[in-house]
């Protein structure tokens, strides 16, 4: 009996050292991981620059807007963004002209009266947006279909919303035979920053030879007396520029981040702005994912994006740098998938810069960006078996 007790005492530790059922891994275990529970900071680096040229390239690929931009908005060799419009002020067929002459058999002077043209219809909208123009330039050309030179005269004027002024060099002009010549080339004064809206050739008079039709080479070539214009102007931001953009949908947002169980994310960055625009982000809201297309979108009040900030405007020579801290936080639970994000913002000219011409090189450049995630990142892993 004594020996039995001794053996019992000897093997008691063996019993204590046995396996623990709670740690049985034969049926697998939960491998979900939540990493970086306090916080993790990640350098994001630099993103961009996102220039006007890049944006124009993207816009030009969109049907409708693309052709509109191609028609009017050009890029110069110096990367300046400029408006260009060409058109006809007045033209008349030689046959039609001869019919209007009281006596075609004798050389005579024909008065076409006052002729005018409206320059690029959308340019007039620029003023409503507060956009300005700079470096305005006008060219007027004329074509003479006759085998005889033609003398002419007129009183040309350019007219904008704010001003009108004569165009030099066309009081008396000569149209060489069968040729197109430049009658006027005029750069407008710098202080004129609203776009020219129309051109007028007042009291346009041509001194015609007898029987003009007989002086045309044949009836298959150019039969028109034509007065055409070419208008170019740098697109610029004026001091009055303001553009509120409300409830703008970031349609491409499709961030499936819900699975990571994020609670708070803080994005810190320096935004370098060479656009002469002050951007004020008023509000960014996240909408709850919709179960179906027909369902009405509902703002997710649980997700708060700290977004009341203003980005200062600058220029290529003097870029502005704004330190931004953008935070997104789930008041309760975690941040879900981001499917629909809307923002309200307003654009305005940066004060004290005056009228600044726009360049395709101007834009926004994210520098020294970093992200700080707080509250952990959940990595869903299929449970081990």
């Amino acid at each position: 009996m004594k020996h039995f007790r001794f053996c019992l005492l000897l093997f008691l530790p063996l019993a204590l050292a046995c396996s623990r059922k709670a740690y049985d891994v034969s049926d697998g275990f939960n491998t979900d991981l939540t990493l970086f529970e306090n916080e993790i900071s990640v350098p994001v680096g630099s993103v961009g620059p996102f220039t006007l040229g890049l944006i124009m390239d993207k816009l030009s690929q969109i049907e409708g807007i693309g052709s509109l931009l191609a028609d009017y908005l050009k890029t110069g060799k110096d990367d300046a963004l400029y408006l260009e419009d060409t058109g006809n002020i007045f033209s008349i067929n030689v046959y039609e002209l001869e019919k209007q002459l009281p006596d075609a058999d004798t050389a005579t002077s024909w008065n076409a009266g006052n002729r005018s043209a409206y320059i690029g219809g959308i340019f007039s909208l620029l003023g409503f947006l507060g956009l300005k123009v700079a470096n305005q330039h006008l060219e007027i050309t004329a074509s003479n279909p006759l085998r005889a030179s033609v003398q002419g005269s007129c009183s040309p004027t350019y007219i904008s919303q704010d001003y009108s002024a004569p165009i030099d060099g066309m009081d008396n002009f000569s149209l060489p035979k069968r040729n197109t010549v430049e009658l006027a080339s005029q750069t407008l004064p710098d202080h004129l920053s609203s776009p020219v809206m129309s051109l007028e050739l007042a009291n346009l008079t041509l001194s015609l030879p007898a029987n003009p039709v007989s002086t045309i080479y044949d009836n298959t070539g150019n039969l028109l007396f034509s007065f055409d214009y070419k208008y170019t102007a740098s697109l610029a931001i004026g001091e009055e520029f303001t553009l509120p953009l409300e409830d703008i949908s970031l349609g491409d947002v499709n961030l499936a981040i819900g699975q990571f169980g994020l609670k708070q994310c803080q994005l810190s960055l320096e935004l370098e702005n060479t656009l002469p625009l002050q951007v004020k982000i008023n509000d960014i809201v996240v909408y709850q994912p919709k179960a179906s297309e027909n369902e009405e979108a509902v703002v997710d009040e649980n997700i708060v994006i700290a977004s009341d900030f203003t980005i200062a405007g600058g220029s290529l020579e003097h870029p502005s740098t704004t330190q931004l801290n953008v935070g997104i936080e789930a008041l309760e639970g975690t941040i879900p998938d981001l499917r629909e994000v809307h923002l309200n913002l307003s654009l305005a000219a940066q004060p004290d810069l005056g009228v600044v011409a726009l360049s395709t090189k101007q834009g926004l450049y994210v520098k020294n960006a970093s992200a700080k995630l707080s509250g952990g990142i959940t990595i869903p892993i299929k449970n081990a078996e």
Partner: protein
Amino acid sequence: MKKTIILLTALLLAVSARSQSFQQAFFLDGYRLGYRYNPALQNQDGFLSVGQWENQNRNNFGAASFLYPRGDELVTGLHSSVSAQEFLGNLKDDNYFNNSISFNLVSYGWRKEKAYHTLEAGFRASYSASFPKEIFTILKLGTGESHYDLGGLSLGEKAFVELAYGYSRKLSDYISVGARAKLLVGLEALSYRLTRLDLTLSESIYEARLEADLDLTSSLYKITPTKDGYLGLNLSSKDRWRLPSGGGLAVDLGVVATPVEGLTLSASIVDLGGIFWYYGNAGKSQGTTTFTGMDNLSMEEIQEGKIGNQFQDELDALLASLKLKSVNNRTLLEAIPFNVNLAAKYQLPFYRALALGATGNYVSMKGMNYWEARGVLAWNPWNWLGVTANAGSGEHGAVWGAALNVAFKKFRLTAAYCDGFGGTIPYTSTPLKANNKMLTIGLTYDL
């Protein structure tokens, strides 16, 4: 065939170990290999032993450092239901495990007057790994500290043959001294050490400064460097078996005293020495990888999902800094782990078969030092039977053990087992807690 040998060697190493003396040898009267614990211990007569096996596993963390029962399921320490305090509190600054094996090929002992001689040939091997807690601090908590030192990550493996001669002499009726000289013949050694990995993880920069060393000496296989001088995974067996890849010496020293009748004191130091490793592949990697974020990430890259390309470039740079540049003619003198053993045994005057005692043990092993103390109860009622039981405390918590020595005619079987109290994962032998486990089994023949 050589590949088979390599595989078998690897398998052998995967289950192996020994770096701590079999302490209960001091309390089993019939145990013939007690001189391995203290070279001053003598047997009455000669003996022959073939094939004693000792296997030891020691780890300063267990599976319970990573697995946590939560309700009816198990989760990992990185699960949100496990607090950082609980998870990181279960890890040491440097976490290691070490397995070692000692396989005694043959031992022979004989007495000549007051002296006792032993000859022994055996095979010893070990493998170990260690990793710093900082890795899991980053994963669990994030980058709040901004600077981390992950140096200390290492993997190692050693295998060598031991040829030993022992001599013990009774100086008087009260005291004996002994020593063993060992010739160590290196078979192979592998060591990968991340000597430096400084991480800076801030919001403006991720930077890794890395230095690592690889030493591989082997009689069986080699790594042929690439044309540009880097070591790859192009492991190939050698044309012929070549011995040795290392050589060294070690000594054991011991003293046994009996100051009063029934009381025996023992002190010894075992495995004091080292191996000079040579004939190997060696490599060194060092470099600094810096990530300050993406460089002018474009709209196209974002839209086309190419953000990862820049990350891939950075990852490639990091991996490039890990590449090991071949180092010619590297030789290393490495100490083998040594033991300091103290023990006292007192045979009860009214029943000499029963003894009480205590042991103390300290193992010096680079980065994995260990100590423990045990109280021992020994019962040696007959020449053919001896039993001991012990319990105590060590660096990794409470420990216990038991040993048996039983004889049949001239054959003696010895078995001993030591373990901790942490338990294991069911159906496996994986310890849940920091642990020190040892199994010894052997057969001797009395001459």
